């Protein structure tokens, strides 16, 4: 049954306007879907990229830390630095270059910090050595823990007793 209605003394036929409504609603839906899809893809890309970068950084930092390795070639006590000092010679036996940023002397008995030495130019290439005279007024029999810190956050520890 054909429906009609009147408006301002004009008769309108509803059957003739149905197709237009479909097109409009489809367009609206598609637009909404597109916008939502684009937004979701954008969010997805952005979120994943951030995630990737974060993982990348964590991963490379941890991997590089694993590859860092130092051995203490020799540690010897001197009295002519001038004054007393401790010579610390270490070698990079890992596969990556590293930067020594700090050497800390700890009392082996009380664990109190004795001296901290900071370095800004102590890079060691693989298979190379780094030697430093750490000025410290050691006395015979001193039990000293030596901790070497690298830029990547590794710590290498050894213990010596002053002659």
């Amino acid at each position, binding site marked *: 049954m054909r429906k009609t209605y009147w408006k301002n003394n004009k008769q309108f036929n509803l059957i003739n306007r149905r197709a237009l409504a*479909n097109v409009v*609603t*489809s367009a609206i*839906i*598609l637009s909404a*879907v597109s916008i939502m*899809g684009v937004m*979701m*893809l954008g969010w*997805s890309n952005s979120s*994943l990229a951030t*995630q*990737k970068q974060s*993982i*990348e950084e964590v*991963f490379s930092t941890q*991997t590089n830390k*694993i*590859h860092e*390795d130092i*051995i203490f*070639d*020799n540690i*010897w*006590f*001197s*009295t*002519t630095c001038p004054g007393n000092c401790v*010579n610390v*010679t270490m*070698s990079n*036996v*890992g*596969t990556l270059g590293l930067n020594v940023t700090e050497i800390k002397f700890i009392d082996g008995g009380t664990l109190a910090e004795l001296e901290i030495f900071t370095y800004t130019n102590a890079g060691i290439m693989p*298979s190379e*050595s780094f030697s430093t005279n750490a000025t410290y007024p050691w006395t015979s029999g001193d039990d000293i823990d030596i901790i070497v810190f690298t830029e990547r956050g590794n710590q290498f520890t050894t213990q010596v007793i002053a*002659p």
Partner: protein
Amino acid sequence: MRKHRGLSAVVGAVFLVAVVVSALSYVTYSMNVLGTFSESLITEEKRQQDKQDEEFEIMSVNITPANKLDGIVKNTGQIPVEIKSLWIEEVDALDSVKKFNIGTVIAPGNQLSLISSVDFDMDPAKGYAMKMVSGRGHIKSFYVNSPSSQNLLLNIHAIPEFVPSEFTTTVLFTIVNNMSNNNILYNLIPSVSTTAIGAATIDQLSGPTPVSYPSLGPGEIATFEYVYQLTGDVDEGAIFDATIANAVAENFVTTTTLIKEVTIASNANTAFESFMLSSVQTGNDILYFHDNTELTPGGYQMDGSDPIGGGSTGNPSITALPFWSTNVTSSTVVINGTWNSRLAYYSNLVPNGISQPSFAFMFECNNCRGTGHTSESTGNISTDDFVKSGGPTWHSTGGPHNDGYFSYDGNDYHSAEWDAASEYLAYQDISTNPAYTAIWVRIPATTDNYMPIVRWGDENESNEDEYEIALGDGTLGNHGKIVYRFTTNVDTDVTTCVSTGSTVYDTNTWFHVIGVRPADDQCTLYIDGILQESQSHAPDSTSDVDVDDPDDIFIGFNGDADYLIGDVAMFMHWNNVAALDATDAYDLYNTNYGTNGTRAHFTLQRTTGTGIVQETIYDDNFDLNFHDPAKNSDTNMRYNLQTNDDTYEKYSFYNFTTITSSNSTFAIGERLKFEISWDSDTQNIPINIRFDDDDSQFVLPDASSYIQPPTAVPDWPSYTTFDRDDKVTLSTFNNGPLGAWFTYQGTRFILTTLDGTTSYGSLVDKVNATSVNEDQDSIYIPNQNYAAIEFFPFGNPPQIQPPSNQRVPVGTYDAAIFLSGYDDSGNIFLKTINLGVIVVTD
């Protein structure tokens, strides 16, 4: 609504695709990350595995005779090892740290010699802590000569703890390496000091045995043995304090041995001391040089036994000649006085670095190889030597170096042939070759404008060229000058060099001339090592100095009517040898052919058994005479450089002598070292020293080379090498205070293999040539007299003549003597004397 269903599917698909793509992308990335991480872990694990697989051992560490660090590092793992560096720190010496970069890769199973990588001077008396670092970070710590600052587990025992007077006690000193960090000790040297209790006398008879341990690993034990004889009253004795070289101060142990009465026998006070053991004895105070090298720390033996065998000739300018006494078996005091080494040697003719001459007349003998002949020293002229005509006069001294020379009076000369291979072995002619000639000459004032000194070419032969050194050339302008000239076309095509300036040489003083023909048409003249003139003439058609007729080399004559009035002390010629330069000419002029021909370096030292120097008695150069190998030529035989080295007459004798002003005391186990070495070749004539030659012509005092130290108390022991089939004679000395007899039963000589598994014994045969047997004791040995005890060959069982299959085999043995007897007060004596290590030959 039905028409929207398709759209819903599309929308759903889009979402699905977006979600799936995002998920896949994330999963893929995650997988990649995990993969990379795994690879990274694998790489690190491989590095850690390599580090674990890396193994190297320091097989040995020692000190060379030149006190350099040496040792062997071996790769004992399955992968290559890079030895990166070695740190050396002198113990108890701060700031003595040294780092040596090595950087050598050792393949699995291969070794690295430290001396090739590390040049480090060590002091044998000091201790060193060392660290070796590998490329992968392994560190080996070890100590040389020192246990560093750590205590070691030490033990000492005296066995027995109670002994009768004059009996021995054995001190065993053990060391356990219980240091932390698994450190290894290298060159472990014990030290035992003794303190007498009361008035006891402590004699160290042997030890330490061994002298040192080359290395002591973690947990390993070193044991050193000492044997002491104690003499004294009851309850006297000895305290033994033991430690090791360079130990920490508190690281020592102590034990005590006391003298107690033994009631089962009364002991004689008579004391016999063993001095030498040899099948042949000559003197107690002479140490002959031997060419045997066994049982020395690197070099030759020297002891009182006679030279045995064909002998050897050594040239210290090529290889230093160190001679070592054997370890003294009791404390030995060498009284201050004269050390005298008589050397049998002949000299080379020129210093090393200067070409050997083609012939050389040193004029150190007269009428050698027959009346009227003068021998040549190289041996290159085969038969005639130089023949005197008119009798030039020979003087044994008075030359430029107080050596021999001939005087020519103007009517005499020497001449020789230069024309046949049968006479001159290498060169029949000067020909076209480069050549040069050197002479020492002295000419008194003369008015003659031409006097030939040495010359090739007979002036009377019309077809001979000339080559000569002369005073003047016949012209007034060159009167008194030295002229060196040669011709290649009889009397024409002359090349001449004349001494420069107004200096004349007829001044009756010695001067040295070298005329050089670098090539044809060129000449150079040196006088007293200084270049005078160098000439070069235009080339011409001939270049052959042809002087090949009979009697065509002259000294003091030109073959016609001109003679020399003067003296010639040496005449050397080099033919077909590259021309010498100004440096060689200067060195040749300064080479001494008389009393200072050779500056050999002599070293006399007291050392440990392993050669570590304890005291230097002499260490300096000493001048030796030039010894012409032709000097002893006689009517029947000519001797020269080509004569075999085992010919007695080739050698002359001269002494190295030094006098000491203080005594030297050799502790048990120490040695005397006498070394002849070489400091410089410059103006220094090498010598060839004969030693260990048993030729019967070598008779004291002109025996095969030896050294005679001042009086030593007791006398020097000998290396004991004897034939398994021979009887062996032991020299002993009765120190008194009483005379004594030896008994047959109980006097034995024992050899024990070094591993202690087998022993051989020998029965006594004679004492001072008088038989000793079960029916007869020895003849009486008065106080302060020697006793030569002769033993039968060694066997197992010991017997008078053991068959060959029961005789002691060839080898190295520990030797000990058991002496049994009684003195003229009726007391018995029993004594064991350790003789150290001996060698049995066949």
